[in-house]
Structure formats: structure tokens, C-alpha cells
């Protein structure tokens, strides 16, 4: 027989009775008043539900008619669970949770999984989804993004018609090589964005006027164009959207309790991961550009020159790049690191 001291609640009112619950070897259960020994309830068979062990929180024995017996005597309740119930995995769970060795293993497994999942798993999933999205949706998405950009930051190009058609003509051979991508080159006044170029998911590539003016010769712009085509070929726009969303879902599914927190930087890991994804894409696009330029006998150094000038234009006082660690907080790899292979290509 196992006797446990605790408190009895009948489920009808919040009244509390000090009580003793006894479980006999036959499985019969009695509950008696702890002070005067009066019988409160007796069950011929073991028909109570026992809450699982969880650290040293109180245990709750739920009786068939809604009564509850609450106790702190975890050891005795564990013996009951062992003897009278067929709970198999909750005791194990408690063992895992209460030992440092298991916790450390769990931590290691988790870090490996998170690292592997975020570095390889999510990007792979995103690529698979991106490749399977119907072109019509991709096209619509690109159209709408352009619409928003035009409404918010970009405005109509102020470049001469002659300059624009000269560039389009100069870009023609590059675009013709990528016949199965629906590439279109557009020019817009960048305004706040400054000298820049970007690729939309549907193959639209936008050059800002500022970028065109900053270029010393048209081949520099071709170098940038190949970088942007790299983004299109690798479906970076779509993959970024899908990857960032998946990241959010994954974290939500894992933690599921971000609400009600009192910390400020809970979003930091997400942001760092997204930035890391972005830098990976930039490197992929750079590699694509480098390969293309080399294959078509365009000196890769053009790209390096233009990048240098963009950096100078952005922060004229800066001598080079910031400290190394700032790379983790940036959407692009450090310029010095990026242009190195392009400069090497000139040798």
C-alpha cells in the first residue's frame, strides 16, 4: 500500500481538504480526511489519471468524477505510475529533462540541427519550391514589386534616350545568351537608393541613373548586369522570400511562444540568419558574373572598379571597409573581399 499526503478538491467548490490518498496493491484507492480520518471516497479499482512527472512541480491525481488530489510527494506518485499505469515515455522524458548529460547532448544535437537546417536544409527547400512555382505567379510578383518600387523610391529615368538605347544595344549580346530567361533591362532615377542595380524575380533588371553616371565605360555596366543576371538565374529573389518565410515558420514551430517576452533582441538570430542568406546570394551572383566575364573575354576588373567607386560615393571619408565583424551585420559581403577575385582575374 502506498499512502500519500496531499490536498483534496471535490471539483464543485474551491474548498480544500487535507487528505491522505492510499493505493492498495489490488489497485483499490481510498481517500481519507487527514485530520479526523474520515473516509472521503473509495474506488474499487485504479481508475485515476495521474499527471506526468515534471521536475518537482506538484502532481495531480484526477478521479473519475472530477475530483482532484494534489500532492508534492513526487516519489510516491512515481511509484504509483510505475505500478498501476502504463505510461511508458513520460518517465523517460523526466529522466532526460533532469540530467545534465542528456541536456548537453540535446543542446549539441540542437545546435547541429539548427546550423545544418538553416545552412543547408532551408535553402534547399526554398530552391525546390522556387523552381516549382508557376511562371505566371512569378511574373505577377515581379510586376507588383516594380509597381511598389515605382510608387515609393524610384522615379522615371532622366537619362538621355540616346544613352539608354546605346546601353540596351550594348547589353543585347549578354541578354541573348540567356534566351530562356525573360530578361528586361529598365532605367529609373534612384533618388534615395543612389547608384544601384537590382533584379526582380521575373527577370526585370533595373539600373538607376546614378549607377549609369558613375560608370566610366559601358563594360563596367555589363559586369554589373551579369551580376544581376546571376541573381535571376539562381532565382535569388524568390528564394530569398521563401527562405525568410520558412525561417519564420520554422522558428515559430520550434519555439511557439514568442508572445509575452520581455527581451529586446529575440529577433536578432532571425535577422542575422537572413543577412547571412543575403550574403550567400551575393557571392553566388558574383561568381556567376566572374565566370561569365571570363568566358566572354570581358576584363573582370571593370566590376572591381565600379564597386570601388560606389563605395567611395557612399562614404567618401571611409578609408576602406569597417572592422571585420561588421560583416555579420551587412546584407552584402565586404566590398574588399568581394572584388578580390575580380582583381585577380585581371592578372
Amino acid at each position: 500500500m502506498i499512502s500519500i499526503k496531499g490536498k483534496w478538491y471535490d471539483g464543485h467548490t474551491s474548498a480544500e481538504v487535507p487528505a491522505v490518498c492510499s493505493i492498495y496493491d489490488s489497485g483499490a484507492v481510498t481517500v481519507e480526511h487527514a485530520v479526523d480520518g474520515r473516509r472521503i471516497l473509495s474506488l474499487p479499482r485504479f481508475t485515476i489519471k495521474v499527471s506526468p512527472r515534471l521536475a518537482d512541480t506538484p502532481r495531480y491525481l484526477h478521479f473519475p468524477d472530477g475530483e482532484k488530489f494534489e500532492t508534492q510527494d513526487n516519489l510516491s506518485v512515481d511509484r504509483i505510475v510505475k505500478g498501476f499505469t502504463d505510461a511508458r515515455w513520460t518517465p523517460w522524458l523526466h529522466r532526460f529533462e533532469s540530467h545534465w548529460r542528456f541536456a548537453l547532448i540535446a543542446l549539441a544535437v540542437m545546435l547541429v540541427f539548427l546550423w545544418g537546417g538553416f545552412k543547408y536544409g532551408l535553402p534547399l527547400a526554398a530552391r525546390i519550391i522556387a523552381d516549382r512555382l508557376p511562371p505566371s505567379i512569378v511574373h505577377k510578383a515581379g510586376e507588383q514589386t516594380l509597381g511598389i518600387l515605382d510608387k515609393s523610391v524610384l522615379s522615371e529615368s532622366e537619362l538621355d534616350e540616346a544613352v539608354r538605347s546605346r546601353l540596351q544595344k550594348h547589353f543585347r549580346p549578354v541578354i541573348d545568351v540567356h534566351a530562356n530567361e525573360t530578361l528586361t533591362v529598365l532605367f529609373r532615377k534612384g533618388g534615395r537608393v543612389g547608384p544601384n542595380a537590382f533584379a526582380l524575380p521575373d527577370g526585370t533588371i533595373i539600373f538607376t541613373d546614378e549607377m549609369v553616371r558613375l560608370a566610366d565605360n559601358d563594360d563596367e555596366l555589363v559586369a554589373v548586369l551579369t551580376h544581376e543576371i546571376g541573381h535571376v538565374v539562381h532565382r535569388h529573389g524568390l528564394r530569398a522570400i521563401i527562405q525568410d518565410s520558412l525561417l519564420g515558420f520554422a522558428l515559430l514551430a520550434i519555439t511557439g511562444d514568442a508572445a509575452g517576452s520581455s527581451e529586446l533582441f529575440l529577433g536578432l538570430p532571425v535577422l542575422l540568419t537572413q543577412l547571412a542568406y543575403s550574403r550567400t546570394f551575393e557571392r553566388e551572383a558574383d561568381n556567376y558574373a566572374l565566370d561569365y566575364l571570363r568566358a566572354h573575354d570581358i576584363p573582370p576588373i571593370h566590376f572591381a572598379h565600379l564597386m570601388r567607386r560606389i563605395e567611395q560615393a557612399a562614404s567618401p571619408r571611409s578609408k576602406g571597409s569597417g572592422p571585420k565583424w561588421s560583416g555579420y551585420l551587412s546584407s552584402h559581403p565586404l566590398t574588399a573581399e568581394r572584388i578580390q577575385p575580380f582583381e585577380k582575374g585581371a592578372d
Partner: protein
Amino acid sequence: MGIYYNVVYQGKILEGFDFEAAKNKLIEKFSLSKEKAEKILRSRHVVLKKTVDEITARKLGLALKQAGLDVTLTKSPVPADFQPMTARSGSKTEPRSDKLAAPPAAAVGRQTDMAASGAAVAQTPATKNLVIPFEFSGNGLEYFKIWLVNTILSILTLGIYSAWAKVRRKKYIYGSARLNGAGFEYLADPVKILKGRLIAFVFLVIYSTLTELFPLISFFFSLGLMAIVPWIVVRALAFNARNSALRNIRFGFSGSIMDSAKAFVLWPMLVPLTLGILAPYAYYRQRKFIVENHSYGSTRFAFTATARDYYRLFLSAFVPLILGLGLVAAAAFALPPLAVLAGLALYLYLFAFYSVKTTNLQFNSSQLAAHRFKASLKIKEYLALVVTNSLATALTLGLFHPWARIRTLRYHLSRLSLVTSGDIDTFIAGEQAQVGSVGEEMSNFFDIDIGF
């Protein structure tokens, strides 16, 4: 200081009496209604009179035994400042003091209020208030290990186990919180949570895919989402309340979707239209909606704060805000990098300021029957908590989060107590319908924890 007794009936009728006879005696001698008499006789345990001196308890016990009820006297723990009630007849200052206390022969005519006070037969007479602090025994390390093991299982099962993980985490947190020695219990069914989670997850995936791919019409999506926010709020609160219990009595939430729409859509929408003037009012309406619709068993919570209290609270932040902005501006002038730090400090301070003030106001204005809550969070202490939590979370890339959660809860509960008026044994269970978990899972987007 003497010893005091409770007069307790535990469902046993004396030999020689049957149910009907005892019922009739109760009706006759104690002027109880038929329903009340039956209710008492059917209960397995009811405190008929609490914390009275020995003579009063014996007299009442005898009277009840004459009616056929096998009552017992139990020693009652007494607060230090407790003023005992005796059965002195004619004490007019405490009109409810001898509902059952005087022997029937002495004051037959004065016993009618026992019937009038309904189920509250066992309510303690006008005692002095007793302050019962909430206790929290949760431990950051312990919770971290639980979180870790269960999160691993969630990952290994591709998120399916996450419903069980959630229940386990919540059970730990609830079980670690105690009031007067009784633990809180989280009773949600993981399978139900899993279903809700799947629906919410699919909804979330569709929603965010559409808004990302079609930014121009995403406005309509968010409008659609806004339309279901009131429903989400109600269902989430109801699910959580319904699955929380203390002393084997469940909490409940009964807010209507219409009121929810007013509190969470209509008033917030009017805030920008009135240049923010309505912000404190909108916030007040939300708190009121949340508190007033909660219940413990069949007893509703009451909310006594007024819109004026919330305006005063929001306005009181004005001085620190202006001072802080001045400091930030000065810092920006002197040394720009310093301004970032100053801005962050100001933000943290305001965050702590509002969290503390709104929490205190909400709890200090909440009542359950005649019992009140007392919250006394301190801005300085909370600020230290938020700063250390934020730093540790940032430095560990989020791994500190479970720890931070326990620290925050422990602080909140260490500053929260229940001020009772009468005893807390008499709450009666309420009838509540089962609630699905879709709303609760969807509310993961929103921060709507009332924090019981």
C-alpha cells in the same frame, strides 16, 4: 491569541436521520432554501463556518448535529491580525457575522440571511483582509533543460511534437506557480493543440506567401486578417482560461466576438484618426474586455479601473519622455554614436515604465468576488530585469530566452498577491463549453497574455 475552528460538513448524515429529514431540519432551523439545503447535503465537503472561537463552533456543531449533519470541527489557521468573531447576538457592525453561528434557539429570527446569501454559506464574516502572496518555484536552469529536451523532440519530429512540448512547458510554468499552497494546473490536450497548430500554420503559410508575392493587394489580405482578429482574441483567451485550473476549479472566458471587435479593431482604428488622443482609451477598453470576461469557476472577475486612470498613466510618461528625448538630442549633438546608446536606454526605460505601470494598474483594479489583487512591480527592478534578459538573449543568440521567461515570471509573481476578504473556499465550478485551439495558435502572432 486563541485557537479557532472551522465547522465542516463532509457528506455524512448521522444515524437515525435520512436525507429528507436532514434537509427539512436545515430548511426549518436555519431558514435555508430547499436548493441550498440540498446543495449542502450533497457536497462531500463544505466549510459551513470558518474561523470562529471554540464555544461558537461547538454551539453551531451541536445545532447542526441535531439537524442530522455529522459535522466536524477542524482547527483553522489564523492570520496574525485576525479579529475573531464571536456569536454575541446583536452585534450590528458585522451583519453577516452569525449566519450560521448562533444556536438556533437563541436567534431564530435572525437567521434568515443564510438563505439570502445563497451559496456563500461558508463565507467568513467580515474578517480583516488577508494578503496571500503568489509563489513561484520555477527555476531557469530546470526550465531550460525541459525546453531543450522538448524542443529537440519537436525538431526531430518535424514540429509534430511541438504541441506536446508546449503543454509540457506550460505545465511546468503553471505547476511552479502557487497560491496559498495550491498549484495552478494546465489541462490542454496536446492533440487538440496539434490540430489547431496545423490549421494556423497552413493559414500563416498561405497568408505570408500571398502577401510576399503580391505586395500590391496585400492590403486586402491584412484587411481580411483584421476581420478575424476579434475571433482569434476571444478563442485564444477562452482556450487558455478553460484549460487553466486552480484548486480543481477551471477559469473561463466569455467575451463576445462583437465586444472583442470593438476593443481590438474599432477603438484601435480610431487612434490614428484622433492623432493618438484615444490611445489610452483604446488600451483601457482592451484591458477591461479581457479582465471582465474572465471568470474563476462561475465567479466573474471585475475591473474597477477607469479611462481616467489610463490617461493619467500615459500622461505620467510625458516628463521622462521629454527629458529623455532632450538627452538623446544633446548626445547626438555632442557625439553621434552616444545618441544611439541614449536612444536605446530611453526606449528600454519607457518599455519598463509602461510594462510596470500597466501591469500594476490592471491587477490593482481587478477583483474576484470580494477579493482583490495587489501588484507592486518597481520600474527600477523591472528595468534591470529587461536589460539583463535582453543582453543575455542577444549574446546567446536566443538560447537564453527560456531562462528569461522564468526570470520575468518569477519577478511578476513575486510582486503579486491576492488580498482576500473572507475565505477562498467557496468558489463554485462553472459550466463551460470546450474550446478549439485554432485561435490560441493563431494568437502566436499577437501578444495577448493576461498572465494568470
